[in-house]
């Protein structure tokens, strides 16, 4: 028997007027997995993540996060998740330490744990020496690691990351993913949206969205294997099955599903 899923949604839909941002989406995320959420712009990724984080109410369907209903129990959900959006959202006019202490207080980190959690964030983000600097003065890579640190101060079992690495250089991005992995190793479920295919490779499983619908859900290897194509290879012109890159899979799946939405 598998443990209770960290996230489960069933036939979830969300409309804004006539626009169907998310349509009839169902999937489960297992505890402790790194779950990648992919799709072109306007595919409904952010809307889905906002519903799961309790920021939006779904139009229909069911959803559970950490066992709580996304319709009725958003307060319980908010205590148990970390959330970091593409909009970098710490206070630029507070120091690194002040941001940490604010979010620790907001999430009710017990006072005896606060110092330890603060030191943990400072060291994981590599900001020990800069603890008294204004957050606005930090480089983007640092800000993002600090934002991640602030999102997990209360040690949430589930972490939602909405395009956390957009606009960051490759080295910072790699560092960031090292952090994600260490969190996942410690048992945190990580739900992450991304545009970067090499980041998709890091995920345990991938969900691919297009036009508000789920069009594929598998491991990266499984997705590639399912899209092997015969290609004439070598001097003898033998047919060989070649594994496409994830990017090829992604593009052909989106094309088969009617192409990306033009905004």
């Amino acid at each position, binding site marked *: 028997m598998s443990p209770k899923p960290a996230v489960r949604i069933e036939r979830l839909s969300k409309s804004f007027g006539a626009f169907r941002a998310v349509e009839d989406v169902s999937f489960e995320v297992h505890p402790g997995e790194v779950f990648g959420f992919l799709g072109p712009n306007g595919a409904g990724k952010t809307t889905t993540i906002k519903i799961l984080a309790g920021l939006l109410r779904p139009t229909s369907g069911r959803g559970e996060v950490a066992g709580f209903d996304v319709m009725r129990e958003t307060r319980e959900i908010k205590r148990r998740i970390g959330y970091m959006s593409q909009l970098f959202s*710490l206070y630029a006019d507070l120091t690194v330490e002040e941001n940490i202490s604010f979010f620790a*207080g907001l999430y009710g980190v017990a006072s005896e744990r606060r110092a330890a959690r603060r030191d943990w964030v400072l060291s994981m983000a590599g900001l020990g020496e800069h603890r008294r600097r*204004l957050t606005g003065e930090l480089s983007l890579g640092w800000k993002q690691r600090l934002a991640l640190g602030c999102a997990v101060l209360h040690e949430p079992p589930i972490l939602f990351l909405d395009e956390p690495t957009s606009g960051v250089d490759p080295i910072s991005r790699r560092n960031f993913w090292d952090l994600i992995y260490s969190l996942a190793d410690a048992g945190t479920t990580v739900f992450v949206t991304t545009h970067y295919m090499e980041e998709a490779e890091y995920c345990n499983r991938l969900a691919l969205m297009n036009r508000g619908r789920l069009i594929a859900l598998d491991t990266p290897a499984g997705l590639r294997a399912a899209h092997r194509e015969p290609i004439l290879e070598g001097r003898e012109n033998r047919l060989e099955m070649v594994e496409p890159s994830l990017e090829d899979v992604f593009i052909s799946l989106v094309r088969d599903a009617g192409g990306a939405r033009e905004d």
Partner: protein
Amino acid sequence: MSTNGGARRVREMVIKEFRQVRRNRGLLRVIFVAPVMQLILFGYAVSTDVRGTATFVVDHDRSRDSRDLIEAFTASGYFRLAGGSERSRDLVRALDHGRATVGLEIPAGYSRALRGGDEARVQVLLDGTNSNTATIVRSYAERIVQQQSARATGAEESPAVDLRARAWFNPDLASRNYNVPAVIGAIMFLVCLLLTSLAVVREREIGTLEQLMVSPLTGRELIAGKAIPFAIIGLVDLAIVTAAALLWFGVPFRGSPPLLLAAGVLYLISGLGIGLLVSTVSNTQQEAFMAALLVFMPTILLSGFMFPVSSMPAVFQWITLLNPMRHFLVIVRGIFLKGIGLDVLWPQFLALFAMGVGLLGLASARFRMTAR
């Protein structure tokens, strides 16, 4: 989890808000310097006293009596000689060009008529563009002309009714004593309205509001976390501006300081509530700023700040009852000038309380942590 957790989250918000205010030098100026400067500016500018009105004189009589009359005008302090001539045309031109607001024309034979017991006529021409000033000036002029004629004829016979008006509470009838306390109300309202609405909308703009919305912070806690720091700032402003009004303008303060403080708290709650409501309908700081000004103008105009509520049409008088500033002005003027207490002012206190609670409640109801 308990109210305890809620209190802690509100405390964190308040601490955070003060840290941000402390780092924002522009905001510090708006909070601590601007109100005092506004008070001083308004204190001098918003004066309905009419003194030293530019007066153009045409004296056709050229007698001792006519000179006495002119002397009586200028000696009163209400009139200032801006020019004189022998031709009536010059007087008209002076009024047209705005060199004078009042024209005094004394016809030939004024002295004779005065002495002879006939009706002595003097013409006073007024620039009625500003009807308030004109009305006041006219009454001053009438009084002076009558006094002069009485003195010249030596008529000491007492009139049938001896009307002696005494102004209570503000014996000098100094408009500054009446206006400066009101300026305090206007400044506090503006500071509160603007700071609160901008503080919330700024968070929406930079994306931190979303971060707050995914946290366990409830809508009510967020509203409290925003309202408390700005209420404290508003009360500090009340103290600063009141001190400045007393020290700089020497406005009398006859009532109870704690009562003024209590009124300030109730009044600020309304201001904060409106500011928070503005923030719920604005997406950018510019929008919030515009909305705040749109609220501020009618609030001032319908408060009795400049135009007495009693001279408004009945419908507008009813509308002013929904204006927190109107009630606060009654309270501050009452406390400053009359020294009256809760026994008289309780309806205003009650109105402020009801409006404050209502507005804050409405703001927190509108402020949803989960969008539809």
